[in-house]
């Protein structure tokens, strides 16, 4: 019974934790402009993140080494250092977007200007990082984030034309009023939103935080293989809501109030309050994860002592780095940048940085010196190599597409 409870908790946490501000914004933007014709990208992205989260969790559990420690060992300081700079910058950008997301959601709830919420959000994130235990942090944010299920509820309440939605999913095509490069640009963005690099750093470092051993692998596999696809369904629900409500009216998504409009239409104030709670929880959880990931990447590359399981005094450089990251993110937001725009850039840059993270994981998962008998099977390797090709193509295509389409404009 206790085992079942643990598995259920893990699955629910994974669902609630899957969606962050990047998924929220990108899926809504795509739904409002392209309908469901990019849904296949979400499917591809979910399978990919399941594959690599599983691999990195297995590597961390069996070898006791987290992702960035391995990146430095296997790629050397030059390539590993370049990797660090790229991954750190992308994670910083994502952290800034998430803190901005918290402030946006609070602004929507209270009509108090978001700039007043930003320092509050940053301080709250840091306080939780400072004092709250890792497992409590994970579970609370994940469970509250389940409130986002309201998007699926709203979709049913809106009574859409299901045949039309299904047709758009299964027969994707570029809508008549959009250009093909724009379609592919948003495909890359959606892919980056689903397969964010910080997810992998966080998952493998989390495996070390919770002291996973080989026995814990089956639980983690259940969490990932059940939780992430359900989280992916949530993303699709967000896109579908935008397709049903925003697309026919030609409303483009530039702020959080447009993303939540379908929910407000479907269920009034009650559902709207729930969805805002869900957004605050999901972005807060993601802010914690990205802040921890900035600490993990730096500490693991330079060999500092790290981890929430240690007292802050025993991981001084790790906590100082995270403090600085949260402060910098907050300061950037206070310069009045548009958090939605920051989010859109963060997902595209995530897609660009992906190959750097995934190649070392794939290589180490095959190395018997680290993995003993738990090296990848042939099916996993075939899938992993296939995804590596897709990831490299997406990464190379991102900048040209960004330039060609003016960042999706």
């Amino acid at each position, binding site marked *: 019974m206790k085992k079942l409870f643990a598995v259920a908790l893990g699955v629910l946490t994974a669902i609630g934790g899957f969606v962050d501000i990047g998924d929220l914004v990108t899926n809504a933007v795509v739904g409002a402009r392209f309908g469901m014709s990019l849904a296949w990208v979400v499917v591809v992205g979910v399978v990919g993140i399941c594959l690599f989260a599983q691999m990195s969790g297995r590597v961390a559990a069996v*070898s*006791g*080494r987290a992702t960035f*420690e391995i990146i*430095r*060992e296997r790629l*050397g*300081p*030059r390539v*590993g*250092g370049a990797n660090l700079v790229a991954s750190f910058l992308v994670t910083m950008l994502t952290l800034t977007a998430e803190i901005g997301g918290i402030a946006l959601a609070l602004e929507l709830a209270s009509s108090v200007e978001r700039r007043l919420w930003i320092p509050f959000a940053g301080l709250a994130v840091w306080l939780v990082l*400072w*004092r*709250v*235990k*890792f497992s*409590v942090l994970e579970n609370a944010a994940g469970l509250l984030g389940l409130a986002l299920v309201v998007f699926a509820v709203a979709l049913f309440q809106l009574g859409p034309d299901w045949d039309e939605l299904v047709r758009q999913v299964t027969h994707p095509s570029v809508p008549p009023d959009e250009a093909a490069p724009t379609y592919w640009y948003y495909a890359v963005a959606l892919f980056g939103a689903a397969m964010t690099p910080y997810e992998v750093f966080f998952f493998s470092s989390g495996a070390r935080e919770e002291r996973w051993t080989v026995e814990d692998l089956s639980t983690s596999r259940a969490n990932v293989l059940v939780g992430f696809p359900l989280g992916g369904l949530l993303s699709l629900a967000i896109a579908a809501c935008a397709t049903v409500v925003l697309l026919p009216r030609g409303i483009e998504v530039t702020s959080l109030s447009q993303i939540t409009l379908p929910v407000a239409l479907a269920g009034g104030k009650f559902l709207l309050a729930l969805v805002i709670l869900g957004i605050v929880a999901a972005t807060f959880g993601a802010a914690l994860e990205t802040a921890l990931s900035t600490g993990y990447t730096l*500490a693991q*590359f*330079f*060999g*500092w*002592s*790290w981890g*929430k399981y240690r*007292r*802050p*005094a*025993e991981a*001084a*450089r790790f*906590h*100082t780095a995270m403090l600085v990251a949260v402060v910098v993110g907050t300061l950037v937001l206070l310069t009045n940048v548009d958090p939605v725009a920051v989010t859109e850039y963060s997902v595209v840059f995530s897609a660009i940085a992906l190959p750097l993270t995934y190649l070392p994981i794939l290589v180490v998962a095959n190395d018997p*010196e*680290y993995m003993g008998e738990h090296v990848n099977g042939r099916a996993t390797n075939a899938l992993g190599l296939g995804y590596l090709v897709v990831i490299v193509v997406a990464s190379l295509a991102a900048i040209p597409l960004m330039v060609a389409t003016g960042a999706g404009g």
Partner: protein
Amino acid sequence: MSPRLRRAERASTPEEPLPAPPRPAGRVLDARLHLLDRQVVDADGAPVAVVDDLELEPLVTAADDGSAGTADGVPTLVVTHLLSGPVLLTRVLTGRPPHSRWHRIAWRHVSDVGTVLRLGLQGDALDVLWIERWLREHVVGRIPGGRRAPE
């Protein structure tokens, strides 16, 4: 960028499979593959540093009269210290920081070589952790709750 030989410069190298060398009587490690960029942990398993470079010195034996080394050529070199710290920059760029900035960990403190290098002593005994100690005293320790375990 890593250096490269142009095709015209290359002497012809043997193409047929090379014979295996006589097996040395001791554990074999390749420096770049097994030692460089590896995590060093102390006796409690706490991370200490990453190996950024190794210090090599001529072997000095008991019966030494100043001519240590093989027949008439290059002296036998041994690894005396693991190096960490600013030395990392010399591997990425060129140039070298002065001797005094290198943080040394003597090889005799290493008790095990695996996917990490384990030392036989505690981290506090090493000067490579001075930044960590400084931050602990002056920053993290000063903020309330820094010394207690998280709840």
